[in-house]
Structures are given as C-alpha cells and as structure tokens.
C-alpha cells in the first residue's frame, strides 16, 4: 500500500517526437537508443532520482555492460527499457519501438532475466520453460524440442522433471537465463545475472551468456562485479547515482586513468616526510593516503618499488603490507567517481523484492 508513486511527468512523450525518433533504418548499427531518460521516484516527502538524464546507444549484437554500485539506477534503467516502469521524462527506442508508445511490441522481441528470480520453484524445470514458452508465444509444435534444447544448453537435461526448489542457485540462474531466451529474442536483458553465486557457478553462467551471444542476440547486462564486466562485455557503461559517467570499450576505459601501476603500502603510522620524498621521485604520478594505506601510481611500478621501500626504512616507518598491480576497471571507477564499487553507502537503495527500487 505504500508503493512509491512515480512523478507523472509527461515530457518527452510528445507524439510527433516519439514517432520520428523510433522509425529507424533496418540494419542500423544501434538496437537501443536512449534519449535523456529520467526516472524520479516520489515517496511521501522524499524524491529519489534513480535515473538522471541518461543518453546512450547499444549496438546490435554486442554484450553491453551496465556497471555500477548497488543503487546506481541500473535496475531502474533496465525496467524502463523492458516496459515495467514508465520514464518520468525522456524516451528510449528498443529496435524500432518506443518504450512508451509500443510496450507490447517490445515485450515480443525481448527476453528478460530480472535480478530477483521469477521462476516458479514449485514447478519442474520443464514446466517452467513450457509455461513461459506459452506466454511468449512459442509455437506448440516446436516448444517441446526447444525446451529440451535449452535444458541441454543449461546442462540441466537430467533434471528436467525435478522441481526447481531442489536446484542450486547457479542452476536456477542458468535455467532463468535460458528461459528468457526461449523465443530467440532480439535483445536479452540480464539484471545482475551472477549475484549471489559461487565462483564456479559464475563461470558457468558467463559461458552460457557468451554462448547465447554467439546466436546474434544483443545482450545487456547489469553488474557490480568488475571481473564480470571485464570478461564478458564489449562495451561498458559506468553508472553512478543515476548518471552515466563513462561509456567505452574496456581498453579505452582503462586509459582514462594515468598510465602506470598501482602500489599500495599498508602502515600503522605515517610521516609527512615520506610523502614529500616519494612525491619528488621520478616516474611517480600521484600519491595519496586512503585510511591506513598509501596508494601510489607510478609509471614503472616494479622499478620504483625498491626506492620507495628504502624511503620507508630511512624514516624507520614500518610497513604492514606491500602490493603492486596494474590498474583494473575498479581503479578506473574509483578514479571517475571517487569511491569503490561495492561501497556500503548505497545499500538502502537496493530494490525491494517484487517492488520498486526506492
């Protein structure tokens, strides 16, 4: 009864605009075009801008990653694209259909695997697929063979007639992903496909996603796991606090931070002298303190590390740990937003089960 009410803004639903935006040349390179999309939730006297003026395109056939911390607005964005929520303003086109004007058309060409499972765990794997197949109009004459094919693909053929509640988390996830694929959708939306899975199950899910992409399906996935985005995605969009921060292929994203390696040194106490000496050294890009760690970005990390250690010894400051690594996607994210991906501060914005992200 206390569902938040979305703002009734109708900007961007101008009919003339919507029609012209979505009529598209066949074989165009983009399959989704998002234009100044905004979603504001209003609950009592609190307003939350979950998606804030986002504009980008997804290309046909790619695996597109939406990467951001919990509560960044990824799920809300997906829910608007999958016609579950109306945008407050702005438009988006999925293939040649407008998400506001032709939601039914869109539902026919997409497959969705939401963050929270929508499997009926009291039914068998086969029955779940059969039920869903009928909802998405898979022809009865091919439905049975299609189900068996999908179960084979998910390596669940031997469990076809077991209830889903006996399945592990990984098996359920794989079943749900192939279920979304039952009608060969043009676009597959996967919202946090590997959340809560163990490493082995995650690898299996990744393989499966890659396999589905080989069948010329465009895949859009959201995740807050760096490695997932790095492994799977052609292009990655960074999202934080509802805004699009960066969008590019992995290699280009990594160039957003000054080239070099990252050296992290743990300490109990710090001497200002050390900092100034290190800052003065050649090859050093930046030096900063995060809690009890000193983070140094350097052009040739392994070469400068002995010198840094020497500085510490000279000031007789003990080090508790040393690590050196090449920058990861996470470092890019920290560089762009100033915070870590799974920072705890956004926890309260996690979407409620079956409801709406607050």
């Amino acid at each position, binding site marked *: 009864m206390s569902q938040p009410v979305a703002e009734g803004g109708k900007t961007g639903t101008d009919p003339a605009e919507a029609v012209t935006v979505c009529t598209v040349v066949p074989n165009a390179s983009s399959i989704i075009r998002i234009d100044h999309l905004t979603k504001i939730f209003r609950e009592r006297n609190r307003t939350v801008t979950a998606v804030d003026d986002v504009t980008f395109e997804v290309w046909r056939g790619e695996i597109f990653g939406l990467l951001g911390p919990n509560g960044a607005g990824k799920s809300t964005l997906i829910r608007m694209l999958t016609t*579950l929520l109306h945008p407050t303003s702005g438009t988006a086109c999925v293939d040649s259909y407008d998400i506001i004007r032709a939601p039914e058309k869109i539902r026919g060409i997409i497959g969705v695997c939401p963050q929270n*499972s929508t499997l009926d765990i009291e039914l068998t794997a086969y029955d779940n697929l059969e039920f869903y197949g009928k*909802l998405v109009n898979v022809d009865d004459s091919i439905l049975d063979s299609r189900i068996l094919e999908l179960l084979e693909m998910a390596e669940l053929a031997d469990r076809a007639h077991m209830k889903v509640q006996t399945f592990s988390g990984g098996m359920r996830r794989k079943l749900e992903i192939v279920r979304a694929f039952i009608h060969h959708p043009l676009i597959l939306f996967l919202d946090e496909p590997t959340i809560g899975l163990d490493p082995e199950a995650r690898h299996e899910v990744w393989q499966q996603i890659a396999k589905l992409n080989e069948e010329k399906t465009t895949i859009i996935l959201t995740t807050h796991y760096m490695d997932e985005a790095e492994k799977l995605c052609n292009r990655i969009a960074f999202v934080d606090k509802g805004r699009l921060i960066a969008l590019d292929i992995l290699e280009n994203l990594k160039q957003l931070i000054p080239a070099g390696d990252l050296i992290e040194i743990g300490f109990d106490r710090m001497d200002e002298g050390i900092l100034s000496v290190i800052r003065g050294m050649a090859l050093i890009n930046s030096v900063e303190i995060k809690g009890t760690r000193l983070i140094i970005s350097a052009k040739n990390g392994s070469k400068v590390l002995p010198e840094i250690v020497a500085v510490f010894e000279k000031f007789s400051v003990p080090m508790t740990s040393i690590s050196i690594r090449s920058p990861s996607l996470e470092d890019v994210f920290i560089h762009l937003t100033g915070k870590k991906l799974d920072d705890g501060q956004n926890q309260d914005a996690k979407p409620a089960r079956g409801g709406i992200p607050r």
Partner: protein
Amino acid sequence: MIRGAVAIFKRDFKKFLSNPFVVIMTLMMPIMYLVIFGNAFGGTISHVPVGVVQEVPPYNDTPLFTSAAAALNHIPQKDYPKLLDVTVYTDEKKAKQDLARGLISAVIVFPSEISNDHAVRLYVDSSNSIIPALVESAVRGVLASLGAHNPVTVNKIYGDIKYIQFFGVGVIMMAIFTSTMFGGGIALIRDREAGIHEGYLVTPVKRTSIIAGIISSGTVRAFIAGFTIFLIDILITGITIQSVEVFLLVLLVILIACIGVTSLVVSFASRFSAQQEYASVVAFLNLILFMTSGAFYPVIGMPDWLRWITIINPEYYGVDALRGIILRGQGLDVIGMDLIALLIFSGAMFILGIATYRRTLE
C-alpha cells in the same frame, strides 16, 4: 535473556506500528463483529409479507375476515415497525402462487364464520427457519383477541426443514468464499511476492489474459469446494435432490457464484502487495458478506442499513438461489433474478479486475 526478549519485542512492535492499515483493521474487526453480528442476529423481524384470503363461498368479505386482516396488518412491536405487511387476495390460488414464488412468506385462509369446525388454514414458507413460527403465533393472537375460537391448521409447503438444512445450503456459499479468499487470493499475492507476476509482465501476454487465467483457475478451485460441501449437505443434512435438472441447476448456480466471488477477490487481491494487509481485509469482507448473506438468519430481520449491503452482496443471491432450488424446488423462473444479479456482479468484478491489474510495476 531479558535483552533478547526486549529486542524481539521492540522489533515486533515497531513492525506492527509501521503498518497503520493493519493496526486499524485489527481494531476494526471486533467493532465490526459487534455491530454486524449484533444487528444481523439480534434484529427484530418486521414487515413480513403475508397474504390473507377469504374462503369461498361466500363471495363477499365476512366481518371476521375484515377485522382479522386489519388486526394482522397492525400488530405493533415495541420500538420497532409492525410485524406483518398484509396483502389481501381475492383468489386463494393466486395467493398460493405468490407464496410459491417467494413473494410472500405465508398465506392465511380465513373461513366464513367463527366456529369450532371451520379451521383457519395457514400456509407457510417452511424453507425459512424463523418466520413460520412468528406468523403462526401472530394469527393465533389475533384470533384470540377477536374471540374467535377457530382451530388453526399449519401447512408447511416445503415440508419440515431442519435448521441444519437451512444453514447447510448457506455453507455452500461460505465454502466458495473462504476457499477463494484464503486459497486463491493468498496464492495470487504469494505469486506476486515471489516475483512470478513480474515474469508475466515482460512477456507479450495481455492483461485480459492474465486476469482471465487467474479467475478461471480460481473458479475451478472454488467450484470444487462448493461442490464438495453440496455433496456433504446431501449426505449429512438429508436434503433431497428430486431430479437431474435440479442437480444441474444447483451446479450452475454454484459455478456462477464461483465466478463472481473469484472475480471479486482477484480484483482487489491484485492491488495488495503484502499478505498481511490482504488477510485483514479478507477477514473483514468474509465477516460482512457472510453475515449479511442470510445464511444464518433471515435477511428480513436485519436493519435497513445492513440490508443495503445485502443488495450488493453476491453471497446473498447465491444463498437465495440455492435455497430456492434445493429447499423449495423452484426453477429458473423464480431464481432467474438471483442468477442475473450474480452474472452482473461477476461481469462488473471481471472488468474491475482487468482495470485494476497493474501492467507495470507502479
């Protein structure tokens, strides 16, 4: 130990207070029990429609008839409206027809003169558990006050109907209602909570199809419950089914009632997101609809404001139709109105169900 107990107490209480809707419903329930139970059962029966008719010959009204009819029409009840509404018939046959159609509850046939060998014949609708006795005592009282010592013969036109038979028919409706409310409705909300509905929403399946599917499965479940109670009624309460037509007619009424009640439940269950809120509303609805259905106690005994609820209560029409068929052996000609009312109700609820089902998550 104390700390843990206090922590749990605080958490539970916080949750209780955080849902004002449930708090209000919790307080409303006993109040509603008081008001509805009290009025549905404690109400004084008044305005019972009865027919009076003068035996022929003679073809003109005798003084006994005129004064008795007038007296019956003006039986005062302290603080309440009069007991009987008398309609004067000139033709005994016509009066009995109206009785059979349920338009009046009793027919009183007066003999030509005051005498010991001319009986006052009383025909009562014995499918009602309470009214026959009231009418009989009213007739005896009026005769006594007029100094007429004629004997009174009572004819129960539907034979002896025990209260359990009267009540048993009402329980068929209750079974339909409870199985839908607590079975179907909760299942719907659980499916919603489990995200299964979110799964429907991203498929091209139409809103109408979703509602039609949910209602038809719920209808079949409710039908099984109603039919089972019907069979139990036959076995335990001793009601008799005269013919195959009667049996089929009963099934038809149960089916239509099931569609109506299921549509009602689906139309509002689809708006609830939490089981707790739904459950408190259901308990409330179950109370008000069952109590005003006439299953326990004749609707005629209820105060006017409660009778207004009866008019929009599908259970009332269901109970009335089932009693008509099972206890009074009436056919479609009499219970047709009940069926039409049930169908209108079902149709309205079906449309409401479609209109209120959210196609998005908002």
